[in-house]
């Protein structure tokens, strides 16, 4: 439904397009009496309200805008760019840290047949590298040998046979620990490593006794390797 407000707006539009007040009002014969006072007020406003800026102000502002536009980069925008670059770098680093930490946590209990196992090894190697104290590093090596040993046992339980990769890794870890110990003898580390080697010998012997001819072929590569390490 068309209201007085709509007629008023339409009437003013006609006047704004250059028609006279009476011509515009004649288009709305039924509303003429109500529209006339409002249209007259609007016309008066149209005549009085607009102002033009002083010419010198117009010209000065135009000149100022042209100069602003010519500036290649403001210091503020450069600073903003620098800040945004730092912000982006920090965001990427934080994202990588979160991703890395998440992967490390997820891979903590992984076994050699898991795709996450490489992350676990990388994390351990990083941990060895950042451990500068010799005694602490050797203790860490012993701890890692024990870990590898537990992995061999876990794989054996789950697969019912010795896992080649687990054995190789156990060998590498043991060799690395022994090498480290030879280079930098630390009395406090010798005892736990020796204890570990004894434990390993006991476990493997038990395994070979239990599984003779069933789980692991006699004289297999794995068996020979394991035997060689403890000679």
């Amino acid at each position, binding site marked *: 439904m068309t209201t007085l407000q709509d007629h*008023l707006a339409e009437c003013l*539009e006609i006047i704004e397009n250059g028609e006279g007040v009476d011509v515009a009002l004649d288009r709305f014969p039924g509303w003429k009496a109500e529209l006339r006072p409002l249209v007259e007020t609007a016309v008066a406003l149209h005549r*009085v309200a607009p102002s*033009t*800026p*002083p010419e010198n102000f117009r010209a000065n502002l*135009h000149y100022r*805008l042209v100069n602003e536009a010519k500036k290649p980069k403001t210091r503020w925008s450069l600073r903003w760019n620098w800040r945004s670059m730092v912000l982006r770098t920090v965001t990427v680093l934080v994202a990588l840290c979160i991703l890395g930490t998440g992967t490390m946590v997820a891979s903590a209990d992984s076994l050699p047949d898991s795709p996450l196992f490489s992350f676990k090894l990388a994390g351990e190697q990083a941990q060895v590298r950042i451990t500068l104290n010799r005694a602490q590093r050797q203790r860490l090596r012993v701890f890692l040998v024990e870990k590898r040993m537990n992995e061999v046992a876990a794989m054996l339980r789950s697969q019912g046979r010795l896992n080649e990769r687990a054995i190789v890794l156990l060998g590498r870890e043991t060799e690395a620990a022994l090498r480290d110990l030879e280079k930098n003898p630390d009395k406090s580390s010798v005892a736990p490593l020796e204890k570990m080697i004894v434990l390993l010998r006991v476990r493997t012997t038990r395994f070979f006794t239990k599984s003779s001819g069933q789980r692991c072929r006699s004289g297999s590569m794995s068996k020979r390797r394991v035997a060689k390490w403890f000679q």
Partner: protein
Amino acid sequence: MQEQESEESLIRAAQRDPAAFGPLYERYVDRVYSYIVFRVGNPAVAEDLTSDVFLKALEKLGSYQWRALPLSAWLFRIASNCLIDRWRRLAKMKPVPLDGDLGSTAGESDLDSLLGKRLTRQELVKAVSRLTEWQKQVIALRFAAGLPVAETAKAMGKSEGAVKDLQHSALVALRKHLVGKGEDR
């Protein structure tokens, strides 16, 4: 339609090269100044604010999108925000001080056609000061800046129907105040 296309091409040119902002400035400076001077009532303050509006527009032109808002509505939104910022900063300054000095056309020009009586600009200004904030905004955009209803609606973020209602109520109130003034004489 052609005007819209030419304005669009002017905007694109200015977005590519800010030095091409000149024609857009020339197109809108009078209307923006007129709107601001009507709202603040002080030509010197209006000049400062008009400068702020165009400097901000130049700075933000790169992010302006034609489809979202016509340039006039966008500019008047910037102007409106500049006014609000200024009023917040200078709490002493009233939104429409309307001291009767409305710039170059202020002077002694009279609103002589209204009701056949000679009403001064100062009386008109006093009448406007009694309107609500939205009514003042509609009057400033429609009659000082000369925006059509559709663009006024977009500049104010309201529907055209709401602007028509506000325009009607503002004119009724103004008429009432002015007639009262005339009868008091």
